Every structure is written in C-alpha cells, then in structure tokens.
C-alpha cells in the first residue's frame, strides 16, 4: 500500500508531530486554526514522559438550575471551563459525563452546547444524564450531541493506545430505580472489545455509576455487571461517572470506579438525609464542593493517574 502524500496528509503529519499522537489530529484540522496554533504553542517546552493520553472530565453542569444551592450555574460552569483551559496543556479531549442541562429544554441544550465551545480542546465527548432525557428518551440530547454515536447515543474510540467507551444508562430504569444499559448496548460492548488485546487500557464513561454506590437513591446500574463481565480479561479498566455530585472511588477486581464532582451544586453523601436533594452550603463554600478532573495515562503503567481540582 502506498502512503498518501498530498497536502492534507502533510498537514496531518505536522500535527501529529506537534501533538505527539494519533488520529484525533484529523479532528484538529477540522477544528481550524485556533486549536492548531494552541497545540503548537504548548509543545514548545521539553516534556519528558509525555502521557500517551491526557484529558479532562467535567460533569453535572445542570444548566437551567435555579435554586439557593447555586444561584448561577452558568457562572460556575464558565469557571470550570476556564480552569480546564488553564491546565497548562491542551487536553486531548474533554468528557462531560452528563446532566449537561437541568430540564432538557431546547434553550438549555443550546446554551450548554454554546458554552462547551469555549473549551480549548480538539474534541468534547458527552454522555446523557437523566436530566438530559427527562421526557423524550434522549431525543433532544441526541439532536444536540448525538452526532457520530450508535444506538441511543453510545460510542467508542481509541486515543494513544487506550480504548474509550461512552455508555448511556439514563434512558430506561431498573425496577429498583437505578440506571440501565439494556441488551442492545450490552451487545455493543461485547462486540466492541472483542478484537482488543487484553493489555489495552479501557476507560468507560457513563452518567450513573456502574457500581452500586447507593441503590436506594438510584446510584447504581442494574445490568452493569453484565457489561463489566466483557471487560474481565483486560488488565486495566477504569470507569468514570457523574450523577452523584461528589468524589468517590472504589476498586472491584480489575475495575476501578471514580465518581466525579459537579460544576453546579453538591448532593448529600449516600443516605445522609431523606433524599438526594441539592445541598446549600454556607456562603463562600460552594466552589470547594465543585471541580474538574484531569486524567492521564502513561504507556506501560497499568493505572491511570487522576487528579481532582476544586473549582477556583
């Protein structure tokens, strides 16, 4: 097979050299000059052991929420975006793990989509939260964010030798009231990883936790065990979720779960109080409960490095 040597190929090659990786450089060429120059500028200093992958996670922006727990969720989300843009490098991508909107209205989808364009990153990935799919099984969500996805909005992609899977567990619910993946999506996961070698690091995104964090409040996914059974042979599996508005981590076998905090308002710790109601903190304390997350992977290491930052 001969290699294409046209001008597009050249610019792609150049991008790969600057960005030091993979295929999403193609996305960069689509994204236009601003992103390209940012990538080139940030690669000036020598960076030994540049991670094969580094990205940011934000979650639960709840655009449209108006309550005493956070009287300006657009402002805190803007802060979070600015904080991601100030990491000192361009994240390979940013994942928003759901509840982009509070009430899934067209205006709220428009607003959050517009706000996400402020992120300095070649690509933004999302999964829906139950607030994004309140009354239409996710149709408005997919209109806004579903391009390039399969089924009801799930997808997978590869970056820097890592395989990443975005799952949708907010469209139908288990009888216990938690998240649910459904057979179509379980089939997708099984086929999606079938051809991968077992030393491929796997990262799974979902809104609702894929572990039983607190089922009485719906903080779990009833058929997650089935999905995770397809990932048993992999040496490194990391699941990142939102929904619970607080940091939490847990390891079960080969899988490590990390719940992210929110950019909007805190929720109680599991079982603290009658319901997962927004918590109104004393004045000046809100930002301490909100934040962003950095995730990086260095080739040859089994575990990913996570760093959670409070909102500044």
């Amino acid at each position, binding site marked *: 097979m001969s290699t294409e040597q046209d001008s597009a190929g050249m610019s792609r090659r150049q991008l790969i050299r600057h960005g030091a990786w993979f295929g999403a450089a193609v996305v960069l060429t689509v994204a236009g000059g601003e992103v390209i120059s940012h990538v080139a500028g940030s690669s000036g200093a020598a960076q030994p052991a540049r991670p094969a992958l580094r990205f940011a996670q934000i979650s639960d922006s709840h655009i449209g929420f*108006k*309550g*005493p*727990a956070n009287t300006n969720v657009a402002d805190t989300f803007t802060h979070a975006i600015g904080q991601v843009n100030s990491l000192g490098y361009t994240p390979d991508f940013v994942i928003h793990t759901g509840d982009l909107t*509070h*009430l*899934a*209205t067209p205006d709220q989808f428009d607003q959050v989509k517009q706000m996400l364009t402020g992120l300095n990153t070649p690509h933004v990935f999302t999964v829906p939260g*139950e*607030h994004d799919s*309140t*009354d239409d099984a996710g149709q408005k969500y997919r209109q806004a964010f579903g391009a390039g996805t399969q089924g009801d909005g799930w997808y997978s992609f590869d970056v820097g030798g890592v395989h990443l899977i975005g799952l949708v567990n907010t469209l139908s*619910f*288990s009888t*216990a*009231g*938690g998240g649910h993946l459904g057979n179509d999506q379980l089939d997708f996961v099984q086929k999606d990883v079938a051809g991968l070698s077992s030393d491929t690091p796997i990262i799974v995104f979902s809104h609702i936790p894929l572990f039983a964090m607190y089922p*009485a*409040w*719906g903080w779990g996914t009833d058929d997650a065990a089935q999905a995770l059974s397809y990932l048993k042979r992999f040496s490194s599996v990391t699941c990142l979720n939102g929904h619970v508005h607080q940091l939490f981590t847990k390891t079960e076998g080969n899988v490590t779960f990390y719940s992210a905090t929110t950019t909007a308002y805190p929720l109680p710790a599991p079982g603290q109080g*009658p*319901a*997962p*109601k*927004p918590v109104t903190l004393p004045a000046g304390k809100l930002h301490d409960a909100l934040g962003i997350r950095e995730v990086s992977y260095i080739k040859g290491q089994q575990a990913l490095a996570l760093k959670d930052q409070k909102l500044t």
Partner: protein
Amino acid sequence: MPAMSGMASPPASASATPADSPAPQGGTAVSISNFKFNPATLTVPVGTTVTWTNKDEEPHTIAAKDGSFHSPGIDTNGTYSFTFATPGSYDYICSIHPFMNGTVVVTK
C-alpha cells in the same frame, strides 16, 4: 421578612384545576416534596383532573408505568395536570428519580 403563607403561585401558563369543578373531598392534588409523592396513592372518580405540584428544589416528572401519561420536567413550584378518562389503577414514577413511586386509582 414576611412569613410565607401557602405555596408560591405557579406561573400563569401552568395548567391548573379549573375553578368551576370544586375539588371533591379527598382532593385532586398530589404534592411532591422530599422526593416523595403525597399522597402516594390518590383515589379519584373517572373524569377527574389531578394536579401535581413540585415543592422540591430538584425537578421531577410524572411518568405512567404503562406509558399513558408523561409530564415534562416539572421545576420547583411548577405543576402538571392530567385528566383521567378511564377507570383503573395507574402506577407512576418520576423518570428523573425512578425510585419515587405513586399511584392514582380511578374509580367509576
């Protein structure tokens, strides 16, 4: 600061029980607070319009398990009304917080 008496008025656009059909004893209203439907089981005669009012800071929905009715997200102090034209027992949940359960029993 004046004491809050009663609930805040819902927006004019929200549907409400018509004034010309006085609520029968037992009521046609379901209040949502602390992620619970109150009353959890409401019994009404056929043809009744039931109105749910969300008193939580979180939004809720009213979604029939049999799919016969499904509200949009009801924000704080918002309401949703549905008229029951057929007798039967209607189990519903909040589709945002599906561990919330309620029932409307519609009698002939």
